[in-house]
């Protein structure tokens, strides 16, 4: 199961693409494109209403940084899928809207909540994050930040490689009971 890749214990390094507060799911992927579930297809329209050239500027592994309430609005899982499809490896924000947060965890897209790192980062900065420890290094600025750690339960989902693998495990546990 390649889905969700290996996310814990991995260091990610990439250039920053910076966005503001309250970036909503209609900005991330407009509803008119929700006629496919294919992430590379969705990625073509990622951020189209607010930054149409975004998908073409992302290099695989880049990091999206945003302000408060990232991913507010709809429950569409197509939003984190579209971001994942562009090649973004991780999202750092001051805070996330709750359904987006769930969806990202569930599909295995790494996210980190860290106000100071999000505040400081600028477009083009080189950032390295250690998903296990939550340590974020801004290599351009030479600074270090600590993200909110994931609760144990969420780490289990992430370590399983996303919710689907977690569910499989739970069903096996039930059978063996």
């Amino acid at each position, binding site marked *: 199961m390649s889905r969700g890749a290996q996310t814990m214990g991995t260091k990610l390094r990439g250039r920053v693409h910076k966005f503001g507060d309250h970036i909503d799911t209609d900005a991330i992927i407009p*509803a008119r494109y929700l006629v496919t579930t294919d992430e590379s297809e969705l990625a073509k329209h990622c951020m189209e209403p607010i930054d149409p050239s975004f998908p073409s500027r992302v290099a695989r592994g880049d990091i999206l940084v945003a302000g408060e309430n990232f991913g507010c609005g709809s429950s569409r899982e197509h939003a984190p899928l579209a971001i994942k499809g562009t090649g973004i490896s991780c999202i750092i924000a001051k805070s996330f809207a*709750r359904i987006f947060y769930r969806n990202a965890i569930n599909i295995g897209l790494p996210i980190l909540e860290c106000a100071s790192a999000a505040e400081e980062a600028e477009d083009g900065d080189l950032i390295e994050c250690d998903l296990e420890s939550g340590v974020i290094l801004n290599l351009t600025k030479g600074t270090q930040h600590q993200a909110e750690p994931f609760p144990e339960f969420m780490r289990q989902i992430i370590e399983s490689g996303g919710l689907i693998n977690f569910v499989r495990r739970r069903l096996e546990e039930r059978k063996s009971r």
Partner: protein
Amino acid sequence: MTEKILATHSCERHVKPGQLIMAKVDFCMGNDVTAALAIKEFRKIGVERVFDPERIALVASHYVPNKDVGAAEQAKVMRQFAIEQGIKHYYEVGRGGIEHVLLPDNGLILPGMVYVGADSHTCTAGALSCFATGIGSTDLAAVMALGEIWLRVPATMKLVYYGKLNEWVMGKDIILATIGRIGVNGALYKAMEFTGPVIEQLPMSDRFTITNMVVEAGAKNGIMPFDEVTQDYLMKVAPCSQDRWEVYLPDEDAQYTEVIDFDCSQLEPLVAYPYLPSNVRTISEAVKDKISIDQVFIGSCTNGRIEDLRIAAKVIRGRKVHPNVRMIVIPATHRVWQMALAEGLLEIFAEAGAVVAAETCGPCLGGYMGVLASGERCISTSNRNFIGRMGHPQSEVFLSNPAIAAASAILGRIAHPDEL
């Protein structure tokens, strides 16, 4: 209330805000956009059957009648899955409508339930004193397999409404006033508990409008105490279902992160300007701003109920839609459409020069049936006015109650019904 419901649905005796639990799900839902993805993920789990075909609703609502080939394929995936799994509550075009109006009106959502749906406005059902929240598609796949969901127990904020409502002030204005006060992340991850004399006086339609938009304040769920109004509604939509209700009332010493009081006696109808639902002005200010409009949309899970259409028809009756305006009316469900037909409301709209479409979410999310061009402005009774929400990124959406939207259709600018 929220904590009590979640405790009884988990293996815990008490639960605390912030605690992560696996909760039993009483009912779950997906629509033609989110279910297609959920079904794809469900297949990956490798389980043959859903946990309970009677506790799942699949509703074709967003892009039906199919707007294009992609939408048609997604609707087909859901339809075939419903047949394969024997899903009892599958709603086809012409027999359903928008899930957040449809499922409560069909008596499927009851007090005390844990109800999750792959649509952010699932929170609407919290007006029935249950825990209702929106989830993603992979979440829904997991729920369909397990009958459980992982949840972080939300802290609760209490909102108390006092005073007497002025004419033309509706549930929509109460929730816009609330979001305007606390902001679009003012209730992030929290439960919003709505109480007070104003809420007690409101019919279910206005209550649903309020809980519908709690997600626009970032909340996990909105909830209202069970009372006679709830009971009367349930007796109508779900007769003889009392043995399946569980009524949880707030404890005297319930813990709230904050208690916010609202004096509603000075409240006038409100308009949320682009591009956030919190960007609220009074209708008096909006009238002074002389905002011309190109389109009016009356419908959606927020304000597409029969009560909303009655108010709009009362304003429109005997008048004509302004020559520069396209007015689109979409009853939220097939049953609402039929009621509007029987009551003569559809004729009032048609006579005025409005188009009345079949039940769908359609234009609310810029899907189809009223997509905006660049530079166009729409006043809409829906719930979101983000950049490009209803079409071109350079179009604008203003949110209001149905009376304001109807008056605006006549005058071609954002207007108060008293101006007519």
